[in-house]
């Protein structure tokens, strides 16, 4: 499902101008990471993609739907949004019911809702906890449950707000695998993150934001290699790119293989 953000601006009721003329086109199946310092406008931007916020100027089109003309609940069938804090949504007494909440709201049949909830719990490796009370899970597990509760809705677009925050290495790897699975299913994945190495590992396109504007938008290797530009929004390039730049290697390697290839290119070996 294509998303089109057309020159939107947004001012909060208190007068703070959070977005200033942002334009983005995200094609179906694309994986896009949005980076930038706190207050850059990242969360405000993604809240426009499911209609939680309506632009002060401009418009957002999600697969022919103008977000201004639909309720958030209706938009939820197209755009799933994984919030940062899992405790802001827990309503049910068991993990299974909590994950099935979204599918039930969307009107999925009971067997479908159950099947989707089970599949989502398997994806986040919490299938064994289906009967557990959500508050008996650890904080990182609750975050994974939140993720599952949105995955179970089977939306064509999934937005993650800082999904790796508070996760250990195993949790980060698990979320990385989930994102790869979503990409393989041709679903659009959008992430807000400060974890630049995670962003380099899983996202082909990066949008850097600062002061409510898009600072850079393009292939991850191009955007993440611009150390000076990223510095203006307090973002550091990934470790591999920084190491490659320190060694004077050509290109901007995002993976170990890419780094070795750059090393060989510089040394003229194969």
């Amino acid at each position, binding site marked *: 499902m294509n998303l089109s953000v057309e020159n939107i601006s947004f001012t909060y009721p208190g007068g703070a101008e959070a977005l200033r003329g942002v334009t983005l086109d995200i094609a179906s199946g694309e994986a896009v990471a949005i980076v930038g310092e706190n207050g850059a406008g990242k969360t405000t931007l993604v*809240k426009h993609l*499911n209609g*939680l916020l309506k632009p002060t100027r401009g418009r957002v089109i999600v697969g022919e739907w103008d977000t201004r003309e639909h*309720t*958030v*609940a*209706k938009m*939820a*069938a197209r*755009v*799933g*949004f994984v*919030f940062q*804090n899992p*405790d*802001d*949504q*827990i*309503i049910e007494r068991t993990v299974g019911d909590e994950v099935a*909440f*979204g599918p039930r*709201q*969307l009107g999925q049949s009971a067997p479908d809702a159950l099947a989707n909830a089970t599949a989502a719990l398997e994806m986040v490796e919490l299938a064994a906890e289906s009967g557990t009370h959500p*508050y008996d899970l650890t904080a990182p597990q609750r975050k994974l449950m939140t993720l599952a*509760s*949105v995955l179970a*809705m089977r939306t064509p677009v999934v937005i993650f707000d800082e999904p790796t925050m508070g996760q250990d290495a195993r949790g980060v790897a698990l979320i990385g695998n989930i994102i790869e699975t979503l990409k393989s299913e041709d679903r659009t994945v959008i992430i807000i993150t400060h974890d630049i190495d995670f962003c380099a590992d899983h996202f082909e396109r990066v949008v850097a934001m600062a002061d409510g504007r898009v600072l850079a938008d393009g292939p991850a290797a191009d955007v993440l290699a611009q150390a000076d530009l990223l510095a203006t929004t307090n973002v550091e390039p990934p470790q591999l790119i920084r190491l490659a730049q320190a060694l004077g290697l050509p290109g901007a390697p995002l993976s170990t293989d890419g780094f070795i290839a750059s090393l060989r290119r510089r040394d003229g070996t194969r």
Partner: protein
Amino acid sequence: MSGTYGLYVVRQTGIHRLHPLTKLVYVLVCLLIGWLIPGVWSPYIVLLIGVVPVALIARVLPEVIKNTIKTAIPFAISLIIVQGLFWTGGTIVRQLGPFSLKAEGLLFAIRGTGRIILAVSGFLLLNYTTRSDELMLALSQKGLPNSISYVVLSTLQVIPRFQRKANTILDAQRSRGLETEGSYLIRMRALMPLVVPLLLGSIVDIEERAIALEVRAFSREGAKTSLLVLHDTRFQRAIRWLLMLGAMAVIGWRFYLWLAPRLA
């Protein structure tokens, strides 16, 4: 508004700079006079003479009016319905189908509404112009136990935090397809998924705050250091005493009015 200091509205005015106790005493005396002086319109007169000009000088009048109306209207409507339509006996002003609007009930409702408006606007004026931590420090310096100060302070601080949390929960549930717009039935159905996380989250929040306080020696006995310095003046102290004497005079006069017919 500042989330850190409850409802406090940052303004550079003389009212904001007054000692918290001066404002507290002033508001309490206004409420007392408005409640005790006989007459249907006395709360409104005290409101116009005592609260409105001070709110105007403090540049918080729009906030006071807006939020007083929001809070008082449901009370006013219910008072007029209950007292106006169901007053026993009394003079009928207008017949409304099977119900009759009584003059005595209506006057009682007008007076009751005035008292509520006065209490709400006075409380808002105090909170909009006084940092809650300064008010609590002032009360602690007068002997109020720290634990009570904390309960009052945290109650005032919890309001904006609750509002922010409620908005986040609303966003999270709507993003999972929960319809919150439309008929009353739809809104009622949406209530539980909004209230449950708010309550559970608040309980967790309170527990975490209690632990955070304990690990920072909150319940340690003995004197505590305050980094806040409250500026008081002899003039303000004199004003406070005068206000309290005035309040006592009103109480005495009211008591006399009550007692005199019984002694005659």
